[in-house]
């Protein structure tokens, strides 16, 4: 995907970004569900006689969810700058020089967003519509859809 060479693109606000984040949350939930189904089918194939549904441990599930979310967010941002939610809402995450985020910055930003999602609320208060994660990693979220 090409990055818009437009440094004057409008920065997205808190509503669009929150909706995009909720869509991404649903996508990550779907990915976790698929992983769970894969685990169930694997256990059923290996031990069909003594099969029981695997219990959901809070720590393990949280850890897997964290890893999946960081891989999903960081991978999407470093490859195209757009997650599924961003694509729906017409947004793109750009770096300091209006280019795509480098993979390390993208994955660290993803981890920061998962650990502290309330940082998104700073978009509503910041003069330049930047979240706490944007201020730390020098990123911007812009509108890329034609209006």
């Amino acid at each position, binding site marked *: 995907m090409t990055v818009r060479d437009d*440094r*004057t*693109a*409008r*920065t*997205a*606000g*808190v*509503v*669009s970004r929150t*909706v995009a984040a909720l869509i991404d949350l649903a996508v990550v939930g779907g990915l976790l569900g698929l992983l769970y189904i894969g685990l169930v089918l694997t256990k059923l194939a290996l031990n069909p006689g003594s099969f029981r549904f695997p219990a959901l441990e809070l720590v393990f599930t949280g850890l897997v969810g964290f890893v999946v979310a960081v891989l999903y967010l960081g991978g999407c941002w470093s490859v195209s700058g757009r997650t599924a939610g961003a694509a*729906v*809402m*017409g947004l793109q995450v750009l770096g300091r020089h*209006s280019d795509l985020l480098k993979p390390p910055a993208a994955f660290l930003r993803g981890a920061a967003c998962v650990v502290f999602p309330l940082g998104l609320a700073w978009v*509503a*208060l*910041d*003069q*330049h*519509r930047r979240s706490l994660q944007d201020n730390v990693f020098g990123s*911007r979220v*812009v*509108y890329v*859809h034609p*209006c």
Partner: protein
Amino acid sequence: MTLVNAPLPPLPERPPPAPSVLVDVYRACEALPVVGSLFTRGKREAQALLSLIVAAVLDELDLTAIVRDRLPAEAIETVIARIDLVALADEVINGVDLPAIIRGSTNSVTAEVMTDVRTQGERADDAVSGFVDRVLGRRQGSHDRP
């Protein structure tokens, strides 16, 4: 695929128009050097008037009522019985590219919905930013700068 169970008899060929002395004389008059154009114009006017009359007559005709009243029901039923309606329906359905129609309409509806959702989101962003700017006493629109 045959749509009719029994073959219909071929239509008789239309006979060529009979030679008419009046038509030949009129054509000869059209070829005259000075008054020929008047004959040609008169023919055009007559054709236009005739077209209007025929159109008015056709508008007054109720072909459905004529068929219903003049044709015996048995003849209509015989004609309908000779038509393979299933084959006719199959041919019509095969001629319609239904997947392309559904695909095209779905794509356009989806694009409209996506554009609407994005536009509404952007307006909501501006509304929230404007409210916060007013509360904090900031100059509005400053967030548009990258």
